[in-house]
């Protein structure tokens, strides 16, 4: 899935169906499930950012946990210390994360592949440490973190359902936005930089500007995801946002389908529910190894049988069906 599908009635219809289905879900399942899916969405939003940066722009990041954390903490600080309504913080979360990502994009220009990975990794590892620093304790809550109330219930729905709807709406809006971006001239430039950076700059594309801006956008998405994550759990704490989150985001991204938009949704769901199923499988018998071993095996098998991620597999499946039915 190197470039996103063109706007056809079929695409619009499918997207609409997806949005509608998503809206139906909380009405059928319990509050706990809505909460879980909301957490999956928050990861999904961050993964979408990662897909843009790595899948569509070719810049490697194993540090998105840092932007996730920035979003979460920005929201938490504004809610806890300044009494803002959670949803009102979102524009600021987006801005803060974008700025940090954009600034990080500059030094990132000099680094390629593995070295960029190291730089992003350094950022991810440094984040919990910085959040715990005594000097910032008044704002960040130090090692304890910050606790606050979940966003209130809306329109007669339960608290969990309401948060689900807001997260879902933002998620689909961001998906549509991403699609629009990738279909524009900028999008073509972004992908050109991924495919052949030298040719791209020869053609007059300001690769430096595009790369840093893409970093900013990607960070912004991750920050928004972080904010929703914070809302869902009603707290933030520094050690939560460690390097492993960045790894899992990458895992979700690849498993969902890194060069795709729906892959982000699938990746987020996989992250949350993959762990659940691994746990259930392991609990079947004492002879079965612990859940993370099962999960690790899942991952490896996924890579063998769905090398383009779940979305890639779906697309190929659909293409094959089309070929079979038209032959």
């Amino acid at each position, binding site marked *: 899935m190197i470039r996103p599908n063109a706007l056809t009635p079929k695409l619009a219809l499918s997207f609409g169906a997806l949005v509608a289905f998503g809206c139906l879900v909380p009405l059928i399942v319990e509050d706990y499930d809505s909460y879980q899916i909301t957490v999956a969405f928050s990861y999904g939003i961050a993964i979408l950012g990662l897909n843009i940066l790595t899948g569509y722009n070719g810049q490697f990041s194993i540090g998105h946990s840092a932007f996730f954390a920035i979003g979460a903490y920005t929201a938490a600080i504004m809610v806890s210390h300044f009494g803002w309504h959670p949803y009102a913080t979102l524009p600021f979360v987006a801005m803060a994360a974008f700025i940090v990502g954009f600034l990080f994009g500059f030094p990132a220009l000099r680094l390629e592949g593995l070295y960029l990975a190291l730089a992003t990794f350094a950022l991810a590892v440094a984040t919990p440490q910085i959040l715990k620093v005594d000097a910032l304790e008044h704002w960040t809550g130090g090692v304890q973190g910050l606790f606050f109330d979940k966003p209130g219930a809306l329109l007669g729905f339960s608290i969990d359902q309401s948060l689900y709807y807001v997260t879902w709406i933002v998620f689909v809006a961001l998906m549509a936005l991403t699609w629009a971006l990738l279909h524009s001239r900028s999008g073509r430039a972004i992908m050109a930089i991924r495919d052949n950076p030298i040719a791209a700059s020869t053609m007059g594309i300001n690769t430096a500007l595009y790369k840093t801006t893409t970093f900013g956008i990607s960070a912004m998405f991750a920050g928004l995801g972080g904010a929703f994550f914070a809302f869902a759990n009603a707290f933030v704490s520094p050690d*939560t946002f460690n390097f492993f989150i960045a790894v899992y985001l990458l895992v979700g991204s690849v498993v969902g389908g890194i060069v795709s938009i729906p892959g982000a949704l699938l990746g987020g769901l996989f992250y949350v529910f993959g762990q659940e199923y691994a746990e259930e499988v392991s609990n079947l018998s004492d002879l079965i190894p612990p859940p993370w071993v099962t999960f690790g095996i899942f991952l490896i098998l996924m890579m063998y049988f769905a090398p383009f991620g779940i979305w890639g597999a779906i697309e190929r499946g659909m293409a094959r069906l089309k070929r079979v039915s038209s032959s």
Partner: protein
Amino acid sequence: MKLKRILLAAVAASVMSGGAAVADSTGITDTSIKIGNTNPYSGPASAYSVIGKAISAYFKEMNTKGGINGRTIEFISLDDGYSPPRTVQQVRKLVEKEKIAFLFQSLGTPTNSAIHKYMNQKKVPQLFVATGASKWGQPEKYPWTMGFQPTYDVEGEIYAKYVLDNVENPKIAVLFQNDDYGKDYRDGFLRGLGDKKDLIVSMLPYETTDPTVDSQILAMKDSGANVFVNISIPKFAAQAIRKSCEIDWKPLHLLNNVSSSVSATLKPAGLDCSEGLITAQWMKDPTDPQWAETDGFKEWSAWMDRNLPDADRGDVNYGLGYNVSKLLHHVLDNCEDMTRKGIMGCAANVKDLELPMVLPGILVNTSPTDFYPIQAAQLSKFDGQKWALFGDVIDASN
């Protein structure tokens, strides 16, 4: 018989009324109780998952003997990997999907903090949490949460007092883990020092992702400290002990209780290097020969033989798991009102209970205003072989 019928009817009524606030007996029937737990079976704190295993084994055995208070125990223990968001997920699952009666001995300070408000909002008991943080004993604000083990900050105060009473010209170095647990201890120690905080010449943190604490120990020796307060988990405590030995630094070494296990910490560090270490204890160390002939130890040892024969006996957490299971057993056995509120009430009504693997002289006491079941400890010094208790049992309950 009539009483039982009345109770049955009450239970049925409360179940049918959708768990009304007064007589909420979710997860409790006449013949069974569903108990939930979270433990770090994976991740950085996985060493403590032994506690989950011990409790599981205890309930399994009890079930073969007719259960507790006539009821089979369905014990559901989920892995949270010591990650607070995951704890939130797992606990919500336990409460909302599995419909447990209450949460028992969930492990960790940050993890329990994450669900603290939730449990109290949902009015589900968060009983005997496996952490020594000081915030679990606030019955007025959080009536559904109760601690278990002596709190870290009281232990820190005990050490401070010991230093002030026994060391002339103390120059104090403190090593602490850079998280909730470490800072709780540290703050307790600082509180205990009162206005003498300037006696501290070096205060250095470490992260669990650090490979060693060698550089911190080197710096502390260089600072000229003659007292070392070691607030670290077993792996790092062992490193600290061994490094001090290597560089010939011999301060008065106060080791926090969570790392006082002979087999988990002192043996790897080196028994001869550990000579002279002081800790505040409340449990019997299973490798200590002085307890071998006591009833409590024999009871525990036989239980281990029956249920966990291949386990590492030296791990003090098996004793902890056994102790806290016995406490719950006692609470449930003597509880007439088997509803969530009733169980909480019974937990807040324990008087002078002796537990088999707790030091003699330290008893469990709770009341509606005292949600700290165990608040006493005794100082002990390591003689190269075992922890030798000295002084009196220090009771900090107030």
